[in-house]
């Protein structure tokens, strides 16, 4: 703070050399600056009066000076209190920052030269710029503004502050800029966010446990975690993870924690059993602001997934055994008959046994394909692809499905098979795809209805569509129909006899050919399943396709 005087004013400056907060006119001094000439008596009288007046004025001036000193002291104290508590900044009449206090520099990390002369909006969050432009308009109208602001600090972090901005004018009421007083509320917000986070964790349905990674001392368990182990309240405090009645091997846990220390490892999942249920514990390490580390464990009950996986495995094993055992007898008997081990067969009989044997081989191939689905998806199955006419396969599939169609009283009609539809494909696999789609269409069609198998040659693909007028698939089931072990919710399993694998096999095989599958359906109207393979042009075609193995 400083004081200075000239002919007309006594200037009181605070808050640093560049700012002027109070300009006090020296009205009491002005009458003594110019005194007119007078007579002796008058002078004498006047002298006596003047002496009295001067003395009075001097006393009054001294009183004023004393009052000013007190005012100055008070202002100094107020300024110090303000500076110690608040973040202050001032803008000039061009809305450029002309003053910031030390608190401002400490809080934001900027140096004075980073901010002086800049517009405040440069330090606000970009998305808030329009908001601050509006505030500035209010200030120019002489209105003050209070609210929360977000400033970008030098290190890129955001400083939240409770802010009051006042318009600043001179003694003539002219706009001089603004003065902003801020209180940093970032920590308060963080604390509030932390409280919200903890509240959310407490209510989370998944069990969550937090503990110290070295001592394994528990520091947090949410309600779900406590319910899982039969605890309540804060009884976990002071206990160790090893005290928690879970069948979680502590040595494995420590191994997991060590893995978390390895670079690039963000999460480690440990599987363990508890009360007959399978759980996965997802471990993650977090570092607190204090630098201390905590381990978060989020538990997931995996029993459903494990049971599903087990059911799938069991299903595959059952299919494998139940189909392969009779096939062993069929194929073995046919093979022995054909070998002549039971005597020479008449030619006609031998032809029929050969047909039966060949189709038994085809069944073996299909069973193996189902069991190899995992391999297809894993990319470990080989496809013997060559350029051929998809029309031939569609015709073959129709013939192969004739008995099935007859069983359901459905007619199969083909479209677009008059001209070649060339693609690069494994004939046996695509036959399996089309057979699967045709049998599905027949199975879910009404007796007496028609199923259409259509081929369309498009610019870059050949598209095969199997269209039925059957019961259709509910819209909500459509997205998952190509998933394994899925069936439409309206499918009558007892009468429709589906494994739930058909469409996923179709999809896997088509995708291995670089193709795509589509499914559209309207409940009660019918279903269209299509697949598209990349169109091929190959001079080596046409040639005879050998679709049936054996």
């Amino acid at each position, binding site marked *: 703070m400083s004081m200075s005087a000239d002919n007309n004013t006594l200037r009181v400056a605070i808050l640093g050399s560049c700012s002027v907060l109070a300009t006090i006119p020296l009205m009491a001094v002005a009458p003594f600056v110019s005194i007119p000439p007078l007579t002796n008596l008058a002078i004498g009288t006047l002298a006596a009066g003047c002496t009295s007046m001067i003395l009075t004025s001097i006393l009054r001036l001294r009183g004023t000076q004393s009052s000013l000193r007190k005012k100055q002291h008070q202002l100094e104290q107020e300024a110090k209190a303000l500076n110690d508590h608040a973040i202050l900044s001032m803008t000039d009449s061009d809305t450029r920052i002309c003053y910031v206090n030390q608190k401002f520099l400490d809080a934001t990390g900027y140096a004075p030269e980073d901010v002086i002369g800049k517009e405040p909006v440069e330090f606000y969050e970009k998305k808030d710029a329009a908001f601050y432009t509006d505030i500035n308009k209010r200030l120019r109208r002489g209105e003050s503004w209070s609210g929360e602001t977000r400033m970008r600090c030098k290190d890129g972090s955001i400083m939240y502050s409770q802010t009051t901005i006042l318009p600043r004018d001179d003694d003539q009421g002219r706009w001089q800029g603004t003065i902003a007083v801020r209180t940093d509320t970032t920590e308060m917000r963080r604390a509030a966010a932390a409280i919200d986070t903890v509240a959310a964790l407490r209510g989370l349905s998944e069990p969550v446990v937090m503990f110290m990674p070295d001592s394994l001392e528990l520091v947090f368990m949410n309600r779900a975690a406590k319910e899982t182990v039969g605890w309540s309240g804060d009884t976990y405090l002071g206990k160790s993870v090893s005290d928690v009645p879970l069948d979680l091997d502590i040595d494995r846990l420590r191994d997991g924690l060590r893995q978390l220390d390895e670079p690039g490892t963000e999460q480690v999942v440990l599987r363990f059993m508890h009360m007959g249920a399978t759980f996965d514990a997802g471990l993650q390490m977090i570092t607190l602001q204090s630098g201390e580390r905590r381990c978060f464990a989020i538990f997931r009950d995996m029993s459903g997934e494990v049971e599903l996986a087990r059911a799938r495995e069991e299903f*595959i094993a059952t299919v494998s055994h139940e189909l392969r*055992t009779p096939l*062993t*007898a069929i*194929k073995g*008997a046919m093979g022995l008959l054909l070998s002549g081990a039971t005597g020479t067969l008449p030619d006609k009989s031998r032809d029929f046994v050969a047909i039966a044997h060949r189709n038994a081989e085809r069944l073996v191939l299909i069973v193996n394909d189902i069991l190899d689905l995992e391999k297809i998806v894993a990319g470990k199955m080989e496809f013997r692809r060559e350029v051929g006419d998809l029309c031939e396969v569609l015709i073959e599939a129709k013939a192969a499905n004739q008995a099935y169609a007859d069983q359901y009283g459905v007619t199969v009609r083909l479209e677009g098979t008059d001209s070649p539809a060339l693609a690069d494909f494994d004939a046996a696999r695509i036959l399996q795809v089309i057979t699967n789609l045709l049998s599905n269409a027949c199975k879910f069609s009404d007796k007496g209805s028609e199923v259409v198998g259509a081929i369309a040659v498009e610019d870059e693909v050949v598209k095969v569509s199997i269209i039925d007028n059957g019961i259709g698939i509910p819209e909500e089931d459509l997205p998952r129909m190509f998933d394994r072990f899925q069936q439409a919710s309206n499918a009558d399993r007892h009468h429709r006899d589906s494994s739930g694998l058909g469409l996923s096999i179709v999809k896997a095989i088509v995708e291995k050919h670089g193709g795509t599958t589509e499914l559209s359906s309207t409940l009660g109207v019918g279903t269209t399943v299509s697949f598209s393979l990349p169109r091929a042009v190959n001079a080596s075609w046409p040639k005879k396709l050998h679709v049936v193995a054996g």
Partner: protein
Amino acid sequence: MIKLLHVEDDPDILEIALMALELPGVFEVKQCSDPLEALATAQEFAPDVLLMDLMMPGMSGDVLLSRLRELPGLETTTAIFMTARAQPHEIQSLIEKGAKDVIVKPFDALTLADQVQAIMERP
């Protein structure tokens, strides 16, 4: 003649396998449709090779093998399983339980005897 004990619960497969194994005339085949029957007769028959189904009612093939191994004279007899449960990990598990190999169903009747002989002769 190679003495072969075949244990299989499916009568059709028993019949087909019998014919298939006897085709080349190198095997003397004894068949049992029940694991307990196999346990009762194995020691007396003293087979050179055991050919067993895996999934049988009452006792699975791997349990039968461990019981047969307890009988004098059968501790190291070549054991071959015939099974439709032929996923790689299942085959590996059976070999770890003492089988020399696994023949996958459906087997080829015309080459079954050759397959068994080849497995027996393998070191």
